[in-house]
């Protein structure tokens, strides 16, 4: 359990260092796609693309649950 939880914790040193604004990381659309995909696999066991399609089609079971909300919040990062 401890290992699983540890792996889910945010790790600031791994975030892209693109701009020098303290406390804010500005990411590109491509980086957003990668983040969405990474988190969709981590929390929901599917790709980011599959998640977005199923989410918008209303095909995600209980879309109000926390793990779904975690990933849904990231959708705009990946969009043009």
């Amino acid at each position, binding site marked *: 359990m401890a290992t699983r939880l540890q792996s889910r914790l945010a790790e600031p040193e791994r*975030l892209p260092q693109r701009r020098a604004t303290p406390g804010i990381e500005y990411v590109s659309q491509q980086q957003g796609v990668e983040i969405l995909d990474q988190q969709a696999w981590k929390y929901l066991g599917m790709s980011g693309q599959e998640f977005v399609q199923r989410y918008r089609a209303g095909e995600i079971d209980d879309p109000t649950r926390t793990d779904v909300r975690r990933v849904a919040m990231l959708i705009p990062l990946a969009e043009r």
Partner: protein
Amino acid sequence: MAGRNLHEAYQNFISPMSEALHCITEVPLIVRERNRLVTDTPFSVTLGKMDPVLLKGEAPLHLTVGQRIRIIRTEDPSDVRGPFKIRTIDYIYLLATTDDDEIPNFQWTPEDRADETANVVTFPHLHLGPALTGSKPQIRPKNLHKAHIPTGRVSLEAVIRLAIVEFGVRPHRQDWDAVLQRTEAAFMEWRTR
């Protein structure tokens, strides 16, 4: 928050939010680059990648913060602050134990379509997590954590203050209360609903 142009409105929103969060964590906000800003389009503002963030203190906690926003253009010529403002699409502010048992989970999804069967409401609300309800609550024993407790709109600063004052999270700066008062006052003045 508002601004004379999209970039100013965007920056005036995320900078105070970042400053408030910096009172308790070094994990940065993640947002899209500013060269792609357009009106009426969703943007994410998330603490890290939406993973639980460890907060140190008397009892360590996990914090999750996420908002989706859009920049809108208002038509009030008397508003010297500028025509561009930030509108919240939804938010989630979640405090949990380090085992990820939720404590309070504050949510608001004003642009969702209310659907009782899908457990979707559009008013600001709170879910009481297992860390508060225990394993055998006397009402709704199977799903009390699904109940939507009305809250009114909750500021991020209120949640940070809750973590510090009530749950013993250790602030990273001595003047955290002044910082939160300042950033929260700006939020209260500029919010659009």
